[in-house]
Structures are given as C-alpha cells and as structure tokens.
C-alpha cells in the first residue's frame, strides 16, 4: 500500500459515501467551484484541497477501481465510494505509521505556495548566478508573471545583492531549522544555484528514499509551513514577506465571487445580481454558498428563514447525511437545493469556529 492509496482512503473515509468519485477528484485536484470548496469544509478535507493538482481523472478513476478491487472500498450505486471494514483498518494503520504532516493546508496555502515557490527558486538562482558574475544562465522558471516579478524586485547593484543574499539565507535558515531534517532537505535539494540545477520531485524522493507521493505531500506541507510562518511573523521574515505581500489576500474568494459579494452588499437581489453580471442565477447561488463559507458576517436569513434553517439541520442530523438529495426528499417541495446548501455551508463554518474557539 503506497502513500497515494492512504490519501485516497482518507478522503473516501471522510466523504463516507456522500459524494461521487468525481466529487472527491475535484477536491484533490483543486477545482475552484463553490461545490468543491464547500465539500472541503463539509468533510474536513480542506487541507487536502488541490494536493493532486494536474492529476488526470482517468488515472484517478483507475486508482479508485484498484482500491475497490482490493476490497478496501465499496462503491455505493457504482459511484459513491465508501470504506469497507478492511479499508478502515488499513487506513488507521497507515495513518499511525505515516500520518499526514500537520502543516498541510491546501485550501489556504495551495495557490499561495505555488507562486511563492516559483518566485523563490528563480530569485535564489538569479542571486547565486549573478553573485558569481554569471549573467547568461538559463532561468529555471518560464512563467511570465514570475519572470516579471523577479525582474522587478531583483536588487540592481552588487552591494544590495550581497545584502539580500545574506538576509534571505538567514531567514530561510531560521525557517528550515524549525522543520524536520528530511523536510528541510526536501526543500533545499529543489533549489537551483550556480553549479547545480535543482532536483526534480522524483530525484528528491530517490535521494530521501521516500515514496514519491509522500515526498510530494511533505514538500507541499513544508511550503505551507513556511508561508504560514512568514505571514504570521512578518517582522521576523521581512525579505520573504515581500514574496507574499501582493498575493496574500487573493486566496480566500474566487474573483467572480468577490464581485457578487460587492453587489449583494449594496442590497441587490439574487436575480438582479445575475442580470447585472450577465450570469445564470445558479452561478450566483454558487457564489453565495462560497460566501457563506468564507465570510463569517454573511447573513443567509435573506435567502432562507431561520426556522427553515433549523429544519434542514435537524433533518441532516437525524438522517446522518449531508447528501442534498436525501435531505431534500425528507423536507419536500417548499425548500430548494440552494437553501439546503447555503444552510449546510453556514452551519459547518460556525460549527467549526465553535470547535476551534
């Protein structure tokens, strides 16, 4: 059993037959839809959001089939995966042996850490080469935004480059020392300097003798850890903070949702927002659900009465499900899917905060 299998089992165990294989796939693949974002919250899987970015659905499906074939999961109605008893034992065993790194937070830091890493690798490489008077090196990134950013922030003269280099070194040293040895290595091996190109994911996993997926997840987690610490202690990491300063806000809401939020705040009705934005009302509904998740002060009473909210939560609790269809069937015609989603979203968040607070 490899690490990928345990990640899949974990996801399946949390969703517990309430979402289809593709629902799980979207979450792991980091699809930015309200439904997926909401699922992350609902099933406490936000930390794994986007952890398999770039993975093909076909391959994912195949993996699920393998798990099914090995008797670790059942497939309700053919597409709703659920752990079998042996799957449950296996997962527990795996999580004890190789638990998920605690800093992993795909939803909050996934996107941020990608940009952060691109900037850092290119910046470090550029420093290393230019301090060796090599100005004709092959850049290790080709993404135009990253190139532009490094060009803009790269110090112009030798003195400030030397300075930046020493500061960055110290900040990174402090950060990396807080991690396990193997995770610090996982990060540093991937950096490029004059005289050594960074190692690929596969090469690092071979060096560290880790399962490739475990190596990948540990690396992600290390990045999330760094980003978290930098944002948390800007004063301790003034140089690294620059790498995040302009992007730190952008993760919470999708851009389109933010526009919807502005209009809603002006007191516009759902249909009016849809008309103004030339979007389908169902899209605006998605935005509202997303807002209910991320914006604590978001008021949903406009869309569903308080007593109906209570009814929904009650039914969900009694039936022991978050599956919209079942809840809807129990409640009848006068409550629609949107209202159920909205309520579940809102409730999950406050429930979460109570727990944490």
């Amino acid at each position, binding site marked *: 059993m490899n690490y990928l299998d345990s990640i899949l089992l974990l996801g399946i165990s949390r969703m517990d037959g309430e979402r289809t294989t593709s629902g799980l796939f979207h979450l792991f693949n980091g699809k930015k839809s309200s439904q997926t974002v909401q699922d992350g919250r609902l099933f406490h899987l936000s930390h794994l959001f986007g952890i398999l970015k770039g993975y093909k659905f076909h391959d994912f499906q195949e993996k699920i089939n393998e798990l099914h074939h090995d008797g670790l999961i059942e497939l309700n109605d053919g597409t709703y995966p659920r752990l079998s008893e042996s799957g449950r034992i296996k997962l527990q065993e795996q999580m004890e042996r190789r638990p998920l790194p605690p800093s992993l937070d795909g939803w909050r830091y996934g996107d941020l850490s990608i940009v952060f890493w691109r900037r850092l690798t290119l910046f470090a490489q550029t420093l290393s080469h230019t301090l060796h008077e090599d100005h004709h090196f092959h850049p290790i*990134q080709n993404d*135009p935004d990253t190139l*532009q950013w490094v060009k803009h922030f790269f110090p112009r003269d030798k003195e400030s480059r030397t300075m930046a280099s*020493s500061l960055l070194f110290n900040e990174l*040293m402090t950060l990396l020392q807080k991690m396990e040895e193997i995770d610090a290595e996982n990060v540093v091996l991937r*950096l490029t300097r004059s005289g050594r*190109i960074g190692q690929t994911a*596969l090469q690092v996993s071979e060096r560290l003798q880790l399962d490739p997926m475990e190596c990948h997840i540990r690396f992600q987690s290390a990045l999330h850890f760094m980003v978290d610490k930098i944002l948390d202690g800007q004063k301790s990491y003034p140089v690294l903070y620059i790498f995040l300063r302009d992007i730190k806000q952008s993760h919470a809401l999708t851009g389109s949702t933010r526009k919807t939020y502005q209009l809603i705040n002006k007191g516009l009705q759902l249909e009016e927002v849809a008309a103004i934005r030339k979007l389908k009302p169902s899209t605006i509904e998605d935005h509202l659900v997303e807002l209910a998740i991320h914006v604590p002060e978001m008021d949903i009473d406009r869309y569903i009465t308080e007593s109906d909210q209570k009814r929904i939560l009650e039914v969900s609790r009694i039936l022991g499900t978050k599956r919209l269809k079942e809840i809807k069937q129990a409640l009848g015609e006068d409550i629609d899917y949107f209202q159920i989603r909205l309520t579940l979203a809102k409730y999950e968040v406050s429930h979460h905060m109570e727990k944490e607070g």
Partner: protein
Amino acid sequence: MSIDHILSEKFGFRSFRQGQREIIEDVFHGNDVFAMLPTGSGKSICYQLPAYLLEGIVVVVSPLISLMEDQVEQLRRQGEKRVCTFHSGMPYHVRMKILRDLTRYKILYVSPETLQTDMLSGTLSRMKVALFVVDEAHCISQWGHEFRTDYLKLGEVCNRIGRPPILALTATATVNVRKDIIKLLNLDRPEMHIYSVDRPNIAFQSEIAETAIEKMDILIRYVQTLKGPGIIYTSSRMATETITEVLKRNGVEKTAYYHGGMENDDRLLTQKQFIYDELDVICCTNAFGMGINKPDIRFIIHYHFPSNIESYLQEIGRAGRDGEVSLALMLYHEDDDFIPERLITAELPTKQDIDHFSIMVDVDKLDQALFEQSITSLNLSETAERFMHFHVKKFFREEKRDFQSWKNQLVEFIEKRIKEKRERIRYMKKWILSEKCKRESILGAFSEKLDKRPLNCCHVCGLSLEPYESSKEKSPRPEMKSWEEELALIFHQENVDV
C-alpha cells in the same frame, strides 16, 4: 550599417554560414523566400538579422511555446530586449501591455493559434509588419491538416496584416512537403534556397533485434559504452519511464525521463540539468528536443521509430551541432511496427466516428452549437477533436450547406490522409530495413544525391564505433552536501559560520 557589421556586432560571428547571406539578401529585396537549411545551421539569424535593418516589426510564427520562449531568452541573453512572445499561456494583462507597446518591439514570436485572434491580428494590421516568418514551416504540412489546423489559415492572416513578404524556414521538407508549404502559405514566386540535409558528422547505425528483450539489452550495452550526452527517443510516456529505470539499474545513473505528462517545474529542471551536463542521458518522447540548444549531444538513439523520415531527420539533427562526430542509432524489433500505425489512426476520427456524429446531429436543422457539442461526446483524441472542430466551422461558413456531401468529403479526406501517412511509415520502415547506404537513401528521400561520403558513414558502408565510445566509466550521481551547506552555497555564505 552593413549586414556583416551587424553580424559581428549583434551576434558575435565573423562570417556567415552556408546560405545565410543569400537568404538575408533576398529577404531585403522584399521577395518571398523559401529556405531549407540543415538542422543546427543557424536558421534564426535569417530573420533576426534583418529585423535590425527593416522598418517595422518581424512576426515569427513558431509551433511551440517553449520554442518561442527559448528564442526570446537567447536573444535577451545576447542583449536584445526588443523581442517578445505572445501566446495563450500569458496572463491577460501582460498580453494587453504588449499589444499597447507593440510598436516598440523588433521581433514578435507567436503561435498560429494566437495569431488568429482579432486582438492581435487587428493591432498588427494597423502597424507596419516588415516580414512574416514561418519557422519550422514543415509543421504546416505535417500538422496543419489535422491537429494544428490554424496553420492552414496563415496565408489568410498574412493578407489581413498587409501581406508583408514571407520567409518560410525549415530544416526538413521533402519535395512534396515543399510544394504543400508554398501552396498553403500562398507564396508568390518564392526565391528557393535549398541546402543539403546531409550532416556529414553524424554516422548511422542500426540494430535489428530478434526479441524485445534483446532490444533492451542492445540499448543498455550501447548506452553504457557510448560517449554522452545523448537522447533516447521512444514512442510513449510509459516507455520513457521504464527505460530510465532500467538504465539507472544498469549503471547509467545520470539518466532522466522527459515527457509531456510531467509537471512544468520538473520538465524545466530536467531540461536544464541536461543542458548543464548534470545528466548523461535523457529518455523522452518527441516532446523533447525542439528548442533545446545543446551543441554537444553525442548520440541520438531511437528505441522506437518515428512515423516519417522528416521527423527522424529532425530528431537526429539535434546531435553534433558543434560539428564533432556523433552517432544516430536505430533500434528495431518487428513488434514496433504497430506503434506509428496506432498513432496515426488516433490522430484522426474514424469513419465510424463520423457515422456516429451524423446520427447525433440534426441534419435538417444544422445547428452549429449542436454540431460542436456532438464532437465532444465522440470521445476523440485531442488532435482528432481539433480536426472535427475545424471542419465543422468550415462547413458552417459555406453558403450552400449539404451535409451528406460534406460528410462524404470528410471521410474521403481522412482516408486519403491515413493512406499518405501509412505510405510515409512504410518508407521509414523501408529505410530501416534496407541494405543500402543509409546516408544515400535518406538523401534520396529529399531528392538529393550524396556528393562526398564521410569516412564514418553508416554501418552498411562500414563503421567503426570507436570514435563514439567513451573510455571512461559512467560517473555516479554526485553526493549531496547537508542542506545547511547547500543553502550556504546557494546564497554565498560559505564563509559564514552556520
């Protein structure tokens, strides 16, 4: 400034290489030019140099984003900042900024697809375009017909932006492909500059294996003894990974694979490791190579053969760009035969697909949206899907629409393309199995005769492998320092106590 002056000033060369001066002069006279120069002979100078002297912008159509970016990166390293790319992978605001400042640039690299957008072609039509360059022009003929169908519209776009003179550049085009390019680009009595495709410093070697296992053994033996760096071409992503594993286990540790399914970061790292000699061998699909500017590649091995001889020539042409002796090795086993066949059939929809399609769409109503939707439910390969979209669009542009005749023509066209492709595979295979001189017969494919036979020609003429072998053992991967030491090296803090 004279062109010789610019050559030394901007490009650092004292003299032109074969063909360059003649091509550049014809470009200056405003003629359409068709130029075929062997791989690695400095084709890009043929338009980069004129860009300094012509009034207006030079637009270069290039098949791959990575290729464009490499060219731009290289020019920037030479100190030329007035170059840029424009493609769909760039963020919107960056593209808008480039459009606003377009007159400031000397050279613009674009893909055929982005050139179609009104945003870009509109801007270009309002300014002076000095020259329209189609780089790797054989792609028009090789890919244009099915999966890069925007290539077929280049002639049209060129008219829209004021019909500047056109320069079509390629390293490998048979007589038929040349005709195809000239027709599709609408070249007007072009000046033809055709130079030999022969690369005298590359020797040909083939091995025909009895079994698949034997083939792998032969590969291992060669890779262990040949002087690197080298490239191994295979037909599938899976094969690149398997072969890499096997080679690593057999002492060729500095081997890595490269294919289109990898993460972008890892692709870049692998490329750069190869460029900086941190890898001895890259095992890859044909996604690797174009735009890789490494002069000292010593061998190219084909573990699977490509589907036509031009692709083969392109791929082996990546060896020995420094002029030193290099080896092109072809490994063959009869099981390989089905691979290119499978590839070409997947590139196009089948007759059955077309039949299914005609059942799904409403022939009486002819609704374009429904047509386009039905394509998606056919579950075609990406290339076949693009092919269908292109032909559906074309159908709806017609004044009188006759579904039945459109359908028949389409099926006929597909059959014709597959037949042509099969013919090219057959030719490729004939070359592999032929007992005649490899060099002569490859030149024959391009209607050329061999002038002068190099000492080490091919295994048919007699070939000593000694010059291609290395006396040294393959070196292991270097040990890594502790992460603290590494970090110190990156940021030049070696002397600081850690």
